[in-house]
């Protein structure tokens, strides 16, 4: 079940090897992204693209405002 998190919780999740996904378009991802985040642009986010992610590990999804 998705829920919003604050940055201190993000740091904790990163330490616990959470998967991070940036959903902005590729050019913006290439300009800057959270280290180790993968890029799945929102328009491309579907069952097939999400299959890249590992089940059982937390997934953090973010956009411009880390929301």
């Amino acid at each position, binding site marked *: 079940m998705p829920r919003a998190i604050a940055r201190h919780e*993000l*740091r904790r999740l990163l330490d616990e090897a959470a998967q991070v996904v940036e959903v902005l378009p590729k050019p913006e991802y*290439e*300009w*800057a992204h*959270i280290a180790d985040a993968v890029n799945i642009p929102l328009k491309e986010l579907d069952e097939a693209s999400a299959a890249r992610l590992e089940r059982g590990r937390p997934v953090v999804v973010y956009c*411009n405002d*880390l929301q």
Partner: protein
Amino acid sequence: MDWLSYGLPRGGSALLAGDVVDRSVATCDLDAPLGEARTRANDHGDGLCVVVADGDVVMGIVGGEALEGPAERRAEQAMTFGVSTVRPSEDVEALVERMSRAGVDAILVTSSDARLLGVLRRAEAESAARHRSPIARGGAASEG
């Protein structure tokens, strides 16, 4: 992007204000004597002292002629209030262009809650942009 101001590790090609900020900058409290602010500014060599509250919340700056006032005057009385600041997430090339147009040689870098991170000097930022490399310098100010 606001998350870039949180100090999280990042990848990508961007050169941001936080990469070229000088975190060593003279600061003083609101009620500090102007003589103290002057000494600190001179010790740092850039003729500027940032007036802070609660340790690092920017309230104003004292520089130039204002630093030359009576030593017993309080920094709060001499400071310029409402100074321009930028976030560490600002793109350096775009920022340098704006600073050049405005004739600004240096600008404070703060977090989104007004906490001082340091000062960005246009000459250094221009150099970093030309060489596309960050300038890593430590100092007293840190992101919280």
